[in-house]
């Protein structure tokens, strides 16, 4: 049970990083990135391949961040004229392209068999249980650091300009903001965080395959950010843990409702996730931790 809890919290941390990534780009500057899982996959494969080629794990993680950021730059620069739904469609397609490349370019990614035996840092020294605890602490620390950084950004003049662009990008131009510049940077940083999350995931599982990067993950993260509070970094983090908790909790329900067959239950789980989202949006549309307006300093 303890091992299971540690596992769930580690996955929760990785989802929290993805939620922070999405909250920066969606909650912060108003771009809908439906291809989040694509950047997650890029980071996972980048780190798996780099460390597979003999580089130390930290280099793999650094590489994942860089690959994510570069992919983010390419996407924004290729779609500068798109916004809203159109950008969302392009990013959705991009994530599928990444997954299909991973599936078909066997020379690089080993296709549907995936890459196994990815280095698990310090596992031989710590043992199985020790490694899991170490990794939970590590992931949680990364979440804490990224959260603090993004919270600081959120409250800075930079965050203020991003929110203005989110609200009305044309008017933000008339306020003297270089809208494209902000978008490109924010997208790159967001994609880099998703890449890092992917790398952490790859080295935790020791195995990645295209099946791990289904579009459903992006939907879960949107659910997390919407439930937690769009536009507030802490909201995304809370939402991610709540979503993972909810998903894991529903695994135990078959024992409580013996009338349902396991196969039926798998389908019911998705229904429950959908119902949860609808309930949150109906009764608390601003999320669990709503966006705040910082008060003006007293003169």
């Amino acid at each position, binding site marked *: 049970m303890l091992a299971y809890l540690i596992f769930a919290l580690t996955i929760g941390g990785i989802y929290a990083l993805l939620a922070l990534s999405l909250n920066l780009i969606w909650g912060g500057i108003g771009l809908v990135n439906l291809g989040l899982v694509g950047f997650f996959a890029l980071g996972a494969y980048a780190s798996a391949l780099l460390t597979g080629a003999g580089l130390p794990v930290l280099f793999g993680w650094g590489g994942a961040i860089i690959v994510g950021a570069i992919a983010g730059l390419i996407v924004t620069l290729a779609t500068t004229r798109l916004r809203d739904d159109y950008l969302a469609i392009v990013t959705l397609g991009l994530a599928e392209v990444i997954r299909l490349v991973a599936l078909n370019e066997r020379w690089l990614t080993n296709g549907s068999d995936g890459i196994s035996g990815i280095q698990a840092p310090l596992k031989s020294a710590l043992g199985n249980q020790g490694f899991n605890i170490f990794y939970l602490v590590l992931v949680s620390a990364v979440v804490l650091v990224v959260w603090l950084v993004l919270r600081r950004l959120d409250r800075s003049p930079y965050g203020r300009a991003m929110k203005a662009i989110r609200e009305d990008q044309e008017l933000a131009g*008339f*306020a003297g903001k270089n809208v494209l510049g902000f978008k490109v940077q924010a997208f790159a940083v967001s994609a880099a965080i998703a890449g890092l999350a992917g790398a952490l995931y790859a080295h935790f599982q020791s195995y990645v395959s295209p099946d791990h990067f289904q579009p459903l993950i992006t939907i879960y993260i949107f659910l997390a950010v919407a439930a937690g509070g769009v536009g507030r970094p802490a909201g995304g983090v809370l939402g991610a843990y709540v979503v993972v908790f909810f998903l894991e909790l529903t695994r135990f329900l078959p024992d409580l409702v013996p009338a349902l067959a396991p196969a039926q239950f798998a389908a019911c789980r998705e229904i429950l996730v959908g119902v949860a989202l609808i309930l949150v949006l109906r009764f608390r549309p601003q999320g669990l931790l709503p966006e705040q*307006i910082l008060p003006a300093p007293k003169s």
Partner: protein
Amino acid sequence: MSALLAVRGLTLGFYGAQILRGVDFAIKEGTITGLIGPNGAGKSTLFNAISGLYRPSGGTVLLGEDDITGLKPHLLVRRGLVRTFQLARGFPKLSVFQHLMLYGLDQPGETLAAALLSSPASRKREQALSEKALETARRLRLGHVIDNPVTALSGGQKKLVEIGRALMADPKIILLDEPMAGVNPSLADEIAEHLIALNNGGITICLIEHDMALIKRLCDPVVVLAEGKTLVEGRFDEVAADAEVQEAYLGTRR
């Protein structure tokens, strides 16, 4: 006095419809220049073409000595040209204070590194802007709503926020698109007083307005636009006496 903003032969069309057909006029430094004309004359379109929202299809716009034709809005703001909109616009979830802060130029805190490190330069600028924003809000009597999101303001207050944030950018010239439209007479009067005070402070203003009493009180000179061209330009009483203007604007001929 020299021309601060000069428009020469400006043309602009949409889908084959020619809206601006060669607009020529100049705004002298230190004036409040009125821009009047019947509905559909192209006044707002002219503002849009000058301020970078639309790219003109022909002609030039000069700010001082510099050709600024077709520059993006954020670059124009940095050169000291600021505008407001006919329907007051704002960033719905941002407070009045945040609106004012946003319009401050030269913000070191708007680079990633400076924002994350909270550099001394960015903190100093933030402090200075914050004092200026509080002062501006006080002057416009927006002090009591400074932390409210702009969606929670009245129509008149939104107009005041438009003026306040234009001020935060330390402009050389402000293009005001009907700043008094839809506000009650006493607030319109208050806004007029603000405009006079700004102008006395050295800011050149170009004002689109339909209320002739306000135009008469505030503006010298007055430029008349009709059917996408400048018709006449001069002092208010000269312009008002012009037969062509009366025909274009008032639709009557003595």
